[in-house]
C-alpha cells in the first residue's frame, strides 16, 4: 500500500494515556483509565483495570477478569481472531501475536490506511498460544524489549533439556524456577509436558489461578499442586517448583531443600542478569521476539513507517533505517521495560 494524504500520525498518535485512534475514539493498551480501550494481551502493563469499555480477545478478557475481577471495566467486549468490527469510523481486527494465550495484534484501518499495533509478540513456537501471523500494513507499531543483536533466540526445548538434566544430576535438590505468572509459567509447564515430564509440578500459590484458567481455556497442563501457604518446611527434593521471580530470594524459598534457583526469561542470555538475581540455572526462554525476529517482522510487513513503543528503541530504529524504513521511537510511558 502507498501512503495516503492522511498521515497516520494524525489519526493514530501517542498521547499521555497511550496510543490513541481519533476516528475510532479508542486507546490501545492505555496506561491510565480511559473511556474506551482495545487491549492486546493480559500482561499488567498492557491490560489495566478501570476503563469504561474494553475490547479484546475472549482469552484476554477472561484473564483480565481473573486478575482484576469481573468489574475491572465498565463493559467487556470480546472479538475473536480474524473478525473485523467497526469502532467509530475505524475498522478493527485482532490477529494472533504469539506472545501469550489470547495475545493479539490490533489491525486498525481508516480511509484505506492500515496500521498494525503488535503489542508484545514472538515468532518462536509456543504450545500455549496461536502463532504470530504477519499482516501487511503501512504503519507497524512494535515493541523492542530485546532489540539488541546480542539477543538471539535459542530453542526453548534445549533449555527445558538443561532443566531436566540438572534435575537428574542433582536429585536431592528442589528445582525452584522463577517464572512470570501469566504466559511464561504455563508455557514452561507445557514444554515440560511435551518433553515427557509427567510428575506433579508444584506451584507458588500466586500462580495457581491463571494455571486453572489456562486449563479451562483448553491448555492442558497435567498434574499440578499448590505449595502449602503456611511457613512449614516443604522439602520437595528433586521436584520442580514454579514461583514468581520475586519469591526466589524471599523467605518463602527457605522451605525447600537446598534449592537450585532457576529463572526462565530472555534476560538470562546475559550473565550479569543471572548473577544479579543469584540465579544458578538460567533458562533462556523468552516470550518476545529476538533481534532477528524484530527486524525481519518489521520488514516483512512492508510498512513504510515503524513506530517503536518500548524497549531498546535506538538499536532497532538504527537498523531499520539502514533498510530504508522510516522508524521512530514513540517513547510511550507505562510499559514495563523488563517485561518477559
Amino acid at each position, binding site marked *: 500500500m502507498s501512503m495516503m494524504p492522511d498521515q497516520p500520525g494524525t489519526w493514530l498518535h501517542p498521547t499521555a494515556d497511550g496510543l490513541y485512534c481519533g476516528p475510532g475514539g479508542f486507546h490501545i493498551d492505555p496506561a491510565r483509565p480511559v473511556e474506551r480501550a482495545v487491549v492486546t494481551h493480559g500482561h499488567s502493563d498492557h491490560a489495566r483495570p478501570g476503563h469504561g469499555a474494553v475490547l479484546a480477545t475472549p482469552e484476554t478478557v477472561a484473564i483480565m477478569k481473573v486478575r482484576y475481577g469481573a468489574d475491572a471495566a465498565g463493559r467487556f467486549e470480546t472479538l475473536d481472531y480474524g473478525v473485523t468490527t467497526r469502532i467509530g469510523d475505524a475498522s478493527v481486527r485482532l490477529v494472533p501475536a504469539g506472545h501469550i494465550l489470547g495475545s493479539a495484534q490490533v489491525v486498525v484501518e481508516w480511509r484505506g490506511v492500515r496500521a498494525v499495533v503488535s503489542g508484545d509478540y514472538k515468532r518462536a513456537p509456543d504450545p500455549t498460544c496461536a502463532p504470530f501471523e504477519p499482516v501487511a500494513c503501512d504503519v507497524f507499531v512494535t515493541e523492542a524489549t530485546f532489540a*539488541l543483536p546480542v539477543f538471539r533466540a535459542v530453542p526453548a526445548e534445549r533449555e527445558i533439556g538443561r532443566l531436566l538434566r540438572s534435575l537428574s544430576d542433582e536429585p536431592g535438590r528442589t528445582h525452584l524456577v522463577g517464572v512470570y505468572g501469566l504466559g511464561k509459567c504455563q508455557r514452561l509447564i507445557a514444554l515440560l509436558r511435551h518433553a515427557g515430564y509427567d510428575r506433579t509440578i508444584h506451584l507458588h500459590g500466586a500462580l495457581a489461578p491463571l494455571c486453572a484458567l489456562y486449563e479451562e481455556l483448553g491448555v492442558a497442563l497435567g498434574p499440578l499442586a499448590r505449595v502449602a501457604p503456611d511457613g512449614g518446611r516443604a522439602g520437595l527434593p528433586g521436584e520442580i517448583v514454579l514461583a514468581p521471580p520475586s519469591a526466589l530470594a524471599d523467605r518463602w524459598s527457605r522451605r525447600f531443600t537446598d534449592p537450585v534457583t532457576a529463572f526462565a526469561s530472555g534476560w538470562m542470555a546475559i550473565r550479569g542478569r543471572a548473577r544479579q538475581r543469584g540465579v544458578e540455572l*538460567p533458562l533462556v526462554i523468552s516470550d518476545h521476539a529476538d533481534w532477528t525476529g524484530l527486524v525481519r517482522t518489521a520488514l516483512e510487513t512492508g510498512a513504510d513507517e515503524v513506530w517503536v513503543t518500548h524497549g531498546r528503541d535506538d538499536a532497532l530504529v538504527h537498523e531499520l533505517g539502514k533498510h530504508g524504513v522510516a522508524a521512530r521511537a514513540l517513547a510511550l510511558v507505562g510499559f514495563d521495560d523488563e517485561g518477559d
Partner: protein
Amino acid sequence: MRAFARLIDDLGRARSRNRKLEILARYFASTPDPDRGWALAALTDGLPPRMPLRRLLADLMAERVDPLLYELSRDFVGDTAETVALLWPDDGRDCDQSPALGQVVDRLRGAGPREHAAILAGLLDAVAAPERYAFLKLVGGAPRVGVSARLTRQALADAFARDIREIEEVWHALAPPYGALFDWLGGSGARPETANLPVFRPLMLANPIDDEDFAALVPGEIAAEWKWDGIRVQIAATRGDARLYSRTGDDISAAFPEIRSAFAGAEVVLDGELLVVRDGAVAPFNALQQRLNRRTVAPRLLRDSPAHVRLYDLLLDGREDLRALPLSVRRERLVAWHSARRPPLSDLSPLVPFDSLDALRRIWSSTRAAGIEGLMLKRMASPYLAGRPKGHWWKWKRAAQTLDCVLMYAVRGSGKRASYYSDYTFGVWRPGEGEARELVPVGKAYSGFTDAELEALDAWVRAHTTERFGPVRRVAPGLVLEIAFDALYASSRHKSGLAMRFPRVHRIRWDKPAAEADSLETAQALSGDSVEPRPAAGQTGHPLS
C-alpha cells in the same frame, strides 16, 4: 573447549565454596591432559601468551558488526568478552565439534603477535557462543569466576585425595600444563623435584589462645613476640632467584621488587611479617594494602610506601631444612644468619621478655596503648609444622573495642543467606541541622550472630523498612547493635571520616533505645591510638620502655 566452557559457566553460577570445589574437582578428575593443565593455568597464574585482546577484538568486530549496534550492545551487556561471544556472527550452531583446549592453546602459543588476530577469528568462527565466551576469558587473563588460586589447589587436592600442603610445596616448581603434577597426583609419576627452586613451603599458623591454654603456659618455655599488623609472608631465595609468597602461597614478588632484590643471592627460606615502614616507623595497614595486588609498582609508590620484612623464623638455611628443629634452635640460627648477611629492608621481630604469666598479661594489656595488635606466643620446643597444629603457637590479640551503633541499612546475603538480610550497615549519632541529630554510617558487619539471631534480625529489618534501593533496605533507626572491632582509623573515604577494622556484631541490644547509642565524638576518641606512630623498626624489648 566444551568441557572448559561448561566449567566456566558452572563456576560463574555456583553460589557456595563447596559447590565450586565439587565442580573443579570433578573437572580435574575427569578431563584429560593437557586440557586440564591449561585450565588449571587459566584459573591460577594466567595463560600464555598475553595479547592486546581489547584492541584485537575491536578490530575484528569492526569488520563484522555495525559499530553503533556493537557499542549499544557492549553498553548493555557491560562486558566485552560476553558481548563479542554473543554478537559474533554464526548460523545459530550448537557446535558438536569444538577444538580441544590443548589444541587451542597450542595454536596460540605457536603463533607470532601478527598472527593472533587471524587465529582468534578462526577459533571464534569454529565454536558457539558459550565456548566463545570461555575462550575469550581464557585468553583475556583472569576469568573472574570467583575462584582463587588457593581454592583451585584445594580442589586439586580433593580430586586426588591429597593434602593441599603437599601440592603447595611443589606448586611453584611447576609450569603449565602441569603434566608432571597430574602424573604424580594420578600415581603414575614421581613427586616433582623442588630442590634448588625458590618454592613455597606451607606456613605454620597460630591458634587463638583461650583461658585454658593460657593457664597451661610455662614461662621460660615460651617465646613471646609482638603481633605485627602487616601480612604474613615467606621469602624463598635460591642463588638464582628470590620470591615473596603470601600465606596462601600466592607469588606476590612482582608487587614488592625491593624485597626481592634485598634477598637476591641468598639461599634461604624465611618467615616474617611484611610491613610498610616510613622513617623507621611502621605505617598503618592501609599503606600496605595499597601496595598489594599489583603486577608492577610505580616508582612513587615505592618511594612513599617502602616495604620492610620483620623476620621471625628460618625454615631452610642453604640446603639445610631446619623445620624439624625446635624454635629455640631455629631462632639462634635466624639471628646468626641475619647478623652475618644483613639484608637491607629487614630486621628481626624481637622477643618480648617476661618472667611470669602475670607479667605477660600486663604486657598484653599495654598493647592497645602502644598501637600493637597483640602478642604471639610460641613454644620454644615447637618444630615448624605446616598448617595450624594445636599446642605450639598462639595469637593473643589485644582486646576488642566496642561501640553501640544504630542499624541503618541491610542487604541480603549470598549463598545460603540469599533470602536473609544479613549484611548490616550501622551508624552513630552526630549533630544535624538545628537541634536534631543524624546518623552517619561508621561500618558494616555480617558476622558475630547466631542463626537464631539472624532470623530475628531479618524479621526486624523486614518489619522496619522505610525505603528500598534495589537490594538495599533502609530501616527506621530503632535497633542498637553493639559492634566489636579491632580498630578505628581516620579515613577520608568514608562520610564519617572513620574506617573500622574487623567489625562484627558483638551483641544485639534489643533493650537499648536508639537515642542512647554512641556518638561520632565517642567514636573519634576511640580512633586516637591508630594514628599515633607505631613502634620504630628495629626497636627491641617492650615498646613502652
